[in-house]
């Protein structure tokens, strides 16, 4: 690591430790993994306890909108990866374009989420609603986990939108360049994690047929 640091200093005449920065990001991602891991654990135990009610409640979710959001997130992961590849190849325009597309996809995801949740709310299914509390325990648990887990994931998407917007401005202002793009890379890692979590949320909530 130190040899890398020295070469970075020699090249740029600034103190920078990209490997250290990335290591910090990975450590943070592992805390995120354990945070969501705990929720997946709760899901696993209750699904094991109430398989039929999870099945019934899962049928209520809109598979189409879930699939659409999966495709949107996967594509946004591609565009953020392409944005990094572009800046490595000194193609600032493509990098900005790809990152803007990522932001557009992230917003689309949240708009879909809004419509999905509003539809559920209008059917009287929201945390603490009379309609929900009249259901059997297993279904209350399913919808509780659905709102907590996709809600926490949605919060991560919102935070991602803020971070990626800041990074976009930094690229436009040449604060992030082909020889100094660790901030873009780390934000990309965060965005991929958001995608990863959705890869598991999608089959567990939307694909119970």
């Amino acid at each position: 690591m130190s040899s890398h640091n020295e070469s970075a200093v020699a090249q740029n005449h600034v103190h920078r430790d990209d490997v250290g920065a990335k290591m910090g990001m990975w450590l943070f991602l592992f805390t995120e993994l354990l945070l969501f891991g705990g929720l997946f654990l709760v899901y696993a135990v209750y699904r094991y306890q109430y398989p039929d009610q999870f099945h019934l409640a899962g049928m209520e979710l809109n598979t189409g909108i879930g699939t659409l959001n999966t495709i949107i997130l996967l594509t946004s992961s591609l565009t953020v990866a392409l944005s990094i590849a572009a800046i490595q190849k000194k193609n600032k325009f493509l990098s900005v374009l790809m990152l803007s597309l990522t932001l557009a996809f992230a917003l689309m995801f949240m708009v879909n989420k809004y419509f999905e949740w509003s539809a559920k709310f209008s059917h009287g299914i929201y945390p603490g609603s009379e309609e929900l509390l009249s259901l059997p325990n297993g279904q209350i648990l399913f919808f509780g986990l659905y709102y907590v887990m996709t809600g926490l994931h949605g919060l991560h998407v919102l935070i991602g939108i803020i971070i990626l917007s800041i990074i976009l401005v930094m690229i436009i202002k040449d604060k992030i360049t082909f020889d100094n793009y660790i901030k873009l890379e780390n934000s990309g890692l965060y965005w991929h994690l958001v995608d990863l979590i959705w890869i598991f949320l999608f089959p567990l909530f939307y694909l119970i047929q």
Partner: protein
Amino acid sequence: MHEEKNNHHIGYGTYVLVWIALLAFTSITVTIAGVSLGRYTLLVALFIAAIKSALVINIFMHIKFDEKIFKVFLLLSGFTLLVIFILTFFDFLYR
């Protein structure tokens, strides 16, 4: 060696291929969910999700080409999660 590794840049094409594979796996998992496989439905869905995550982690997140220590961290946290799952289920099933 170190520099060489750090400068391993993946081309646009590789990313697009991985993206196509991810979309293909998504359509497979959605199609399979419609077919009744009984108790295996969940296993198949989780297996496909695991393949998709492996693609994202290795290629999109560069872990395949990055410092080895990141991979060690990842395996360690995955293992921790696995142990927590196993211990919890032991407690839950044999309480």
